């Protein structure tokens, strides 16, 4: 019955499920209320508060994490659907000793102010760079048959789902551009 260290105390047996999935490389097994989102699982049950709740409706991007390598808004994913799958959050982006190049670039370019959207921006950017590497086009890609080229317009378009009210946008684009160039 008991899941993670902060598991809710009164999970109704009939409306809960046991689910096991990987988070940042470690297998986590928890019993969860079937209504629990991935975001709330991370924040309230696994002690991983890096992913942020900005709107809980998939409208702001602050909760973006990587699910099997693809970026998702974790507030729109029910945790019970995740058995056997793999999640990477902002806490899993850095290496054991040092920041990832993307994280270091965010600091160097001052790509955040309040920092609340930042975990989502970072996970989104990580997922986005992989999408580009796979040749996936965006809404502003002119030639769908050619390899995707990561222009500033492409970065901006591909990061459109991550709101930043402090408006660090130009610095986010600079950080992503630099990271992409050195990949």
């Amino acid at each position: 019955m008991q899941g993670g260290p902060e598991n809710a105390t009164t999970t109704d047996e009939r409306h809960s499920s046991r689910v096991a999935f990987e988070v940042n490389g470690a297998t986590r097994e928890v019993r969860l209320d079937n209504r629990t989102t991935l975001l709330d699982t991370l924040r309230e049950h696994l002690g991983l508060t890096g992913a942020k709740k900005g709107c809980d409706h998939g409208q702001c991007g602050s909760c973006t994490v990587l699910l099997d390598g693809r970026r998702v808004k974790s507030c729109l994913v029910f945790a019970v659907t995740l058995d056997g799958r793999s999640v990477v959050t902002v806490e899993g982006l850095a290496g054991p000793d040092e920041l990832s190049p993307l994280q270091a670039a965010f600091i160097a370019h001052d790509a955040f102010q309040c920092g609340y959207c930042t975990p989502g921006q970072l996970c989104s950017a990580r997922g986005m760079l992989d999408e580009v590497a796979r040749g996936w086009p965006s809404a502003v890609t002119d030639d769908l048959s050619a390899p995707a080229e990561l222009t500033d317009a492409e970065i901006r378009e591909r990061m459109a789902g991550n709101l930043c009210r402090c408006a660090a946008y130009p610095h986010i684009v600079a950080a992503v551009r630099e990271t992409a160039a050195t990949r």
Partner: protein
Amino acid sequence: MSTGAVGRAYPRLEGREKVTGTARYAVEYPVDGVTYGWAVPSAVVRGRITRVDTAEALASPGVLAVLHHGNAPRLAPGPQPEVWLLQEPAVHYRGQFVAVVVATSLEAAREGARLVRIDYDTGPHSTVLAADHPGLYRPDKVNPNYPTDTAEGDFDAGYAAAPVRVDATYRTPAYHNNPMEPHATTAHWRDGRLLVHDSTQGASLVRATLAELFEVPPESVRVIAEHVGGGFGSKGYAKASVVLAALAARHVDRPVRLALTRQQLFGPVGYRTPIIQRVRLAADADGRLTAICHDAISQTSTIREFAEQTAVYTRSMYAAPHRRTTHRLVRLDVPTPFWMRAPGECPGAYALESAMDELATAVGIDPVELRIRNDAQVDPDQGRPFTSRNLVACLRDGAQRFGWADRDPTPRARRDGRWLIGTGVAGSSYPARARPSSATATARPDGSFLVRINATDIGTGARTAMWQVAADALGVPPERVEIRIGDSDLPTAAVAGGSMGTASWSWAVIRAGQALREKLRDLPGDEPSGEVTVEVSTDDEVGGQPTLPRYAYGAQFVEVRVDADTGEVRLNRMLGVFAAGRIVNPTTARSQLVGGMTMGLSMALHEEGLLDERYGDWVNHDLATYHITVCPDVESIEAYWLDEQDDELNPAGVKGIGEIGIVGAAAAVANAVHHATGVRIRELPIRVDKLVGLSALA
């Protein structure tokens, strides 16, 4: 004397925490036995609760309690009726919080909130601002303490006699602050003491409010706000989340986490009032202003008066012999409007700087030159010289950087395929203020120093800036200094608002550093054996500062392209030059200025609270339907500043930069749209529906 940390581009001290997800915000602290609060908004606009049926909610698994006016702990009435919550059956606006459900999980709390049944007796309501609203009245003062109306000379006569006149009315909708982190709180009562982690711009102020409401000594309340996910004014006072969480925690005698939902941020925590502004300008044939009148109409609630100081900007910006400004208000059945980034100056500058552009067109003078021609070195309002005023220098430097010189003033003269290209300019100004604060400085035996002050870093870079200031004040390299902020147990300090955080806090930090150095110098022996601490307050010094016109200035330049067929407006580039005294940290300063400019762009093109009178509330109350500027909207925004030394400000010589970036920005965009299209949109936002069919206008 100075080691020169101030002025250097240090990265944010908490940068690593923020990019690794380890920076903790208000509802992210591990708490044993935590419960979850969910606020229940009223479903009617104006009325009275006749019955609260909690049976079904309480029967729902995990629900521990439902608090409402009938059973919530009592609060002492205070000056902020918005947070005197769950105390009376009266409902003053739709969305007013009328109950809180507490449960053992978020899911249970949300479900419980859905199951609370509340019956109301309702009355008729009025929620739409109109220039002819029968309830218009003249407030006694405007925010925070300015005279309601001013007049000098004879505006009517001066206006009538002038050869060139502009008379235009500008309308702006409600704007919603929408920091990315919702207002959120973890509250816990222990042995009569209240501990809260709150998302606030001023923990000292929140502590005072909670002590007042719950009638406990301030020492019994501790408010921690180490990391705050933005505020933009909306977290400038104690708001509903902290009061509801504290009420709930007291009721269930367990820790409570309560975050407002995004939908709940559109009203109950404040917003920028819709405003109707009429600006009349008169000038001679050379464009020299002879008469200026700015009349502003805005709304407040029925429970408290908040009067946006919209026309105050016009009192000191440009000179003319005949001047008049007025503010009128209507009390509506709406939430109380509150601070949103540059209250007063932001909307006021939109109107005045738009009207200046209309005047430039009317008189046939370049809009940069028109502003230079009407510059004032003596404050038209106070009649005293400005401590420093570099508006003209900002305009000239900006014009040069932007490439303004060869601009063809003819509207709709530049075209690139289907895009009409236009450029616009606006002036910008914001008062440079300071408030009393206190700080301590400690010398440790190992040669390091600790500086403590309850400043708040809502994303501004305050922690880093104060660390730099402290190092210079102590005369040591910053690596030897530790700075601690964001906790009401630290020395009391001013709120992070009004662009006065850095001025207020650095004043106390510098005085603390100086006092500690003096004390260390006077100590017998070479090295102190234990810690040496001094505490200072700037109450007397700040309070005794002479009243002088102190302002930061700026010039905003914008180039837009407008699709001739669809009317879509896109920003090509935006460039601002500011004169804001000394800049403590160029990295964080640039981010703040760019952020303010972007919010001004957002105001010009995207943001609009759409209120439905039948419903009595904003219907687009989420981030899918209330649009803010997003990454693809910002192709190029650059901020620069001039070196400026002003010895009549504060010891650090800073003017504040949190708000000036938004001032004038929307006008510069609107002026550029006019230049591109020949169409003057006087009602924001400038969206396709107002420009569609442009090609038919040719």
